[in-house]
């Protein structure tokens, strides 16, 4: 069962690298925010899978809760900041 988690975790890391392409070459700042938000959700799952691999699930659940929270607030803040006409 542990190997299954390791494989899924590595797969997700591969996906994060793919999305990284969009972060670097994304035509505008908005593509980059969308990509970063996508990376945020993927790393949330990677974090939880880490918890399962080291079977300290209790600790990693709290960390991933905070992570999901700050990822959401970050997205809203970035969108709000970019919306203002300078």
């Amino acid at each position, binding site marked *: 069962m542990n190997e299954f988690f390791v494989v899924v975790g590595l797969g997700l890391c591969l996906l994060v690298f793919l999305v990284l392409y969009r972060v670097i070459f994304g035509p505008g700042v908005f593509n980059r925010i969308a990509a970063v938000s996508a990376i945020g959700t993927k790393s949330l799952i990677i974090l939880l899978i880490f918890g399962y691999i080291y079977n300290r699930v*209790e*600790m990693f659940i*709290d*960390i991933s*809760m*905070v992570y999901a*929270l*700050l990822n*959401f*607030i970050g997205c*809203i*803040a970035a969108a*709000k900041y970019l*919306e203002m006409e300078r």
Partner: protein
Amino acid sequence: MIISSDDIIIKTIARIFVPFIQLFALYVIMHGHYSPGGGFQGGVILGASLVLLLITHGYEEMRRRVPEGAVILLGSLGLLIYSGIGLTCLLLGGNYLDYSQLSVILHVDPAHARAMGILGIELGVAFAVMAAVCSIFFDISTGGILPEDEK
């Protein structure tokens, strides 16, 4: 200056989430010793919830809900709790922040006193950190120009 966004969706979702985020922050503060967390992280989450409220609801509504003075008061209150507990331990004969001395006042065995002391310290730290995060964000977002000065 953060004007209140006229988008009902983000406002309502923020309104639904903020109480739960604040409760989660208090949970993180209180459960510092067995699960990850403690005063500092909890304070940052508390500050983040107020920042979320400020972003979505704009500056005026935020001042009605959390006036400037309250944030600074909370910060100094945190500091008061922190140093207060430390000094009381000093006065009771132990060295600074030696909680077991607190057992004399709390009529509780030293182990419990230590737990209470740690809890108090974390609350103090959390309030101070939250106040710091909030006032930094208030000043940056308004650029120091408060609505009254503009008029």
